[in-house]
């Protein structure tokens, strides 16, 4: 799931500056599961904003609501009635949800209430850890199911660096060394010979480095594709080298 955490209250309040009627809109999917932006969090945030605004002498009415999935346009229509007369929406969704709101309700001001952190899972109650970096070209088949792109601080592909100590990463004693984990797993599975292979430089172009992601499935697309498909790519400038 997408894991997020709430922004500080004062930052959210500042983002709503000038608004008198604010709606806090939660999302019923990933951020509900990670306790950052579900209905309960939306309700608590709305109450906190009202109280904090009152302390600051600012007139602010804050209501709350939730949609099942803020990251799909059609799910947002359910929220339309509750957004009547609202000056500003605080979206408690991931960054996808915030932008889906802006796209569905372009006349509305929508601001983010969360910081979207990573794709991950809970490892114990109250602890979430990253598992995937969305690199676009999965290497888990090479590493026996532990991702060095997301979980090695340097995204190394050829084994642990010199900073691996006691199974931990050099950047923090709370961070497991992904390559230590991979090594132990390969050893258990009798795959250590795989570590001898030199992994060539990774092709990063299927991921964020290659530009904003876009997938087209012609078998699922309805109707004819738009007339103008992308132009042949050329550098944007000759001067900028």
């Amino acid at each position, binding site marked *: 799931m997408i894991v997020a955490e709430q922004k500080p209250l004062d930052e959210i309040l500042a983002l709503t500056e000038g608004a008198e009627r604010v709606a806090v809109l939660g999302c019923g999917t990933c951020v509900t599961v990670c306790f950052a932006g579900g209905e309960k969090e939306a309700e608590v945030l709305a109450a906190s904003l009202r109280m904090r605004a009152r302390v600051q002498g600012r007139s602010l009415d804050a209501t709350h609501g939730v949609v099942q999935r803020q990251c799909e346009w059609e799910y947002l229509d359910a929220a339309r009635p509750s957004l009547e007369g609202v000056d500003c929406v605080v979206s408690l969704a991931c960054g996808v949800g915030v932008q889906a709101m802006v796209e569905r309700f372009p006349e509305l001001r929508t601001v983010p209430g969360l910081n979207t952190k990573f794709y991950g899972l809970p490892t114990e109650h109250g602890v979430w850890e990253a598992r995937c970096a969305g690199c676009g070209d999965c290497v888990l088949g090479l590493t026996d199911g532990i991702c060095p792109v997301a979980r090695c601080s340097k995204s190394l592909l050829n084994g642990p660096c010199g900073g691996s100590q006691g199974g931990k990463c050099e950047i923090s004693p709370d961070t497991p060394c992904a390559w230590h984990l991979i090594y132990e797993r390969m050893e258990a599975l009798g795959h250590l010979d795989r570590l001898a292979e030199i992994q060539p*430089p*990774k*092709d*990063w*172009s299927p991921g964020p*480095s*290659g*530009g904003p992601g876009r997938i087209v499935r012609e078998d699922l697309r309805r109707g004819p594709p738009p007339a103008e498909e992308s*132009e*042949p*790519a*050329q*550098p*944007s*400038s*000759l*001067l*900028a*080298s």
Partner: protein
Amino acid sequence: MSQTDARSNLERVLESGSFAVTAELGPPKGADPAVIRRKADLLRGAADAVNITDNQTAVVRMSSIAAALLAQQAGVEPVVQMTCRDRNRLAIQADLLGAWALGLRNLLCLSGDHQTFGNHPGAKNVWDIDSIQLLKIMADMGDRGVFANGEEVEGEPPRFFLGAAENPFAEPYPYRPFRVAKKVKAGARFIQTQCIYNMDRFREFMARLGDLGLLDKVYVLAGLSPLKGPGMAKYMRDQVPGMDVPDEIVDRMVAAGKGIDDKAERSKAFRAEGIRICIEQIQEVREIPGVAGVHIMAIEWEEAVRPIVEGAGLLPRPQPLPGAAEAG
């Protein structure tokens, strides 16, 4: 070295009010220093400074800083180009400390073309910082002697003559002058523009810079690129986003080869017309208020620069003052 001596030839020429000329030198896709020296021979005395591109169009080439030093040793003052695509803020600052230590004085700060266009499209890009942040970091380093994190630079800090690029022909057009303002605020002392073919739009752009009060604060060098033939003109008109090549320019290039059957002769005629057009463009931009010089981008055609500068009546170039290119 006193602060005065640290000023580059380009800075002195611009400050003196002379109409400046810069050109471009593309490093080789190899490690042969002779390539730089050969190109330097073509450009020496024809330009006040010469931009050394940094992995231009995301194609791996000899390092800009190394090639700049070779050019400087060959008597051509370089403008080091630094893009943000390949290095993070640590590498950029480190390399630029080195560039200054080697005696390089001019720096053009660029975002850089996306690696998708180059010869290593699978590379991970960096863009830890952007060109405007880079300008600010290097301006602060020069003015306040600090790194990007606020820590003090040991000893005399680098004080590069800082430049930036702007494309008057990229959309949204009304925003472009404001982006120049932002770059000037960040520390740019000179601007080199994208290749100009649409003179009306460039005039409009310069007028807006004037409205924003920028023309007293920054030297604008009009970017010009001589055309080698109608193919290049059409390619730039049709294929390169952010390039605005009017049809009459393409038509002139086509007409230049009419009735010439011999391929080599035709190519010669095309190139002569490309040089002629460029000379006319120089005359035109000289008439536009605020244009402090020209930046001639003769891409892999360094031979064209001297006849263009000469044809425009801009030779001889002001003599470099003692100390201007003494380092290296």
